[in-house]
């Protein structure tokens, strides 16, 4: 069966507009994806009919809102194939999920002289929380190097592992280059030295089938807005025994069992980590985003996006002056590139004038750009609703722009 691209495009109202007098081509999906009508309807419906604070409310609306909220937790559990829904914690996003682990697991289990391993591919949000923790604890941050294609050098990772390694925190799929890391191997080797593993799933979860039990990761962080869901919402998956051993993140309502002025006992997971009124409306709407992915099917999405990426590589690859950045064998649908003699900002602005939305710059991965000897790249990232004809427009646009400096 062919991929129902037209039908899918109809589900995303934002795509049907012109910018600068040209039809919008949205290729900034690694930054955030657009939202299907079902997600928008849910947001509206929640505030029109169901708004109430969840848990503990003794009235119909509170009961309804609680039920819908917890439905999403179960949907996320199934989406990641977690063992139980209590292992799903709602956060503000991937960044907060990683910070939660740094502040709780990190504060309790990482001591002076311990080591944390990250990779050269990391987004700043998987670098800075660990630097802060290392500074506070006198721990050491080690970095897995990469080759020129943008793949981690696995043998170097193995050399970094030792009984001092307490945590390995790596990106599942690179936001800047698209590289998919061999995470299953990484997790296996890290566990062999007794280290826990956190996967930054911000980019991978919308493209790849995820099974946290099969991967055996201890944590996975992700963002709803990169999964066709609302902004300001993310998830931290953690194994029950690890989450239970961790102290709470923030203090407040919801996360307590009993409070007296002498002592407070904490609630069970996941509530222990969800202090305060959560982002109820967005959590409820997030279910519809995951339903959309499930109904379209991850494998069909992956096949469609792989088709777009290889078509883009083929068309853009033949343009004089086109320089691909990140040529890993295993990639999600991210095409990072430069044009010989041109600054990525200029290329981005000129593509915008053609109605094509891309991202330019360092993509919050400055150490990676430094390793590659680049100031930045132009990044086109493809999603479920992008079409081959849009790739052709991108190729035409890039060819025109490249000609300015590559006659």
């Amino acid at each position: 069966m062919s991929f129902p691209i037209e039908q899918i495009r109809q589900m995303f109202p934002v795509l049907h507009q012109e910018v600068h007098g040209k039809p919008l081509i949205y290729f900034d999906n690694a930054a955030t994806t657009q939202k299907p009508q079902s997600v928008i309807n849910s947001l509206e419906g929640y505030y029109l009919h169901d708004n109430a604070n969840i848990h503990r409310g003794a009235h119909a609306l509170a009961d309804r809102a609680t039920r819908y909220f917890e439905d999403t937790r179960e949907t996320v559990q199934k989406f990641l194939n977690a063992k139980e829904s209590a292992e799903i914690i709602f956060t503000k996003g991937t960044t907060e999920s990683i910070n939660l682990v740094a502040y709780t697991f990190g504060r309790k289990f990482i001591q002076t002289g311990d080591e944390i391993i990250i990779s050269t591919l990391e987004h700043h949000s998987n670098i800075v929380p660990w630097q802060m923790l290392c500074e506070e604890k006198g721990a050491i941050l080690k970095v897995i190097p990469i080759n020129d294609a943008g793949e981690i050098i696995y043998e170097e990772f193995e050399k970094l592992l030792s009984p001092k390694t307490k945590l390995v925190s790596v990106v599942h799929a690179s936001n800047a280059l698209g590289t998919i890391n061999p995470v299953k191997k990484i997790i296996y080797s890290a566990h062999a030295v007794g280290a826990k593993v956190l996967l930054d799933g911000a980019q991978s979860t919308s493209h790849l089938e995820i099974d946290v039990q099969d991967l055996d990761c201890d944590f996975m962080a992700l963002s709803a807005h990169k999964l066709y869901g609302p902004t300001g919402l993310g998830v931290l998956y953690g194994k029950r025994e690890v989450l239970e051993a961790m102290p709470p993140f923030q203090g407040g309502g919801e996360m307590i069992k009993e409070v007296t002025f002498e002592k407070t006992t904490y609630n069970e997971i996941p509530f222990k980590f969800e202090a305060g009124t959560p982002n109820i409306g967005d959590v409820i709407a997030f279910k519809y985003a995951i339903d959309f992915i499930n109904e379209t099917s991850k494998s069909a999405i992956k096949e469609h996006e792989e088709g777009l990426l290889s078509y883009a590589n083929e068309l853009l690859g033949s343009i004089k002056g086109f320089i691909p950045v990140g040529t890993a064998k295993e990639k999600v649908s991210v095409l990072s590139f430069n044009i010989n003699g041109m600054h990525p900002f200029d290329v981005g602005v000129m593509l915008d004038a053609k109605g094509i939305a891309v991202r330019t710059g360092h993509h919050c991965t400055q150490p990676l750009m430094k390793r590659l000897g680049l100031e930045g790249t132009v990044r086109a990232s493809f999603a479920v609703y992008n079409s081959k004809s849009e790739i052709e427009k991108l190729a035409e646009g890039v060819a025109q722009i490249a000609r300015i400096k590559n006659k």
Partner: protein
Amino acid sequence: MSSIQEVQEEIISEFEILGDDKESTIFYIMELGGNLESFPENERVEENIIKGCQSKVWLVADSKDGKVHYQADSNTDITKGLISLLIRVLNDRTPQEIISAELDFIHKIGMGGIIGSQRSNGLAAMIKQMKLYALALQAKQSV
């Protein structure tokens, strides 16, 4: 020599000819960058980089016959074009003229919509630095 206001009006009418077509406007701005006099290599140093610009912008100024002479460069072609417009309006004028200049051409040619809000902040940082140089030279002259 035309006044600051006259030069601004010239620029506004040039951009009016381009109309609403963003592509040709950007292309024109990039071409304007070619008008910049070549930037002295020994001045291409960290101290001369303007803070607050997304792309790198180097700016230096000195005084000739009581007037301020700017030289600038950037690593991006669009920014170079924008700089060349500022220099065209402000170069070789007295510090007082520069300090009191109201640069409304930027708004009138719709620069915000062309370059986006982040780069507009960069442009503002550039103008501020040009005025600061004028202020410093004025202070030096009055000693």
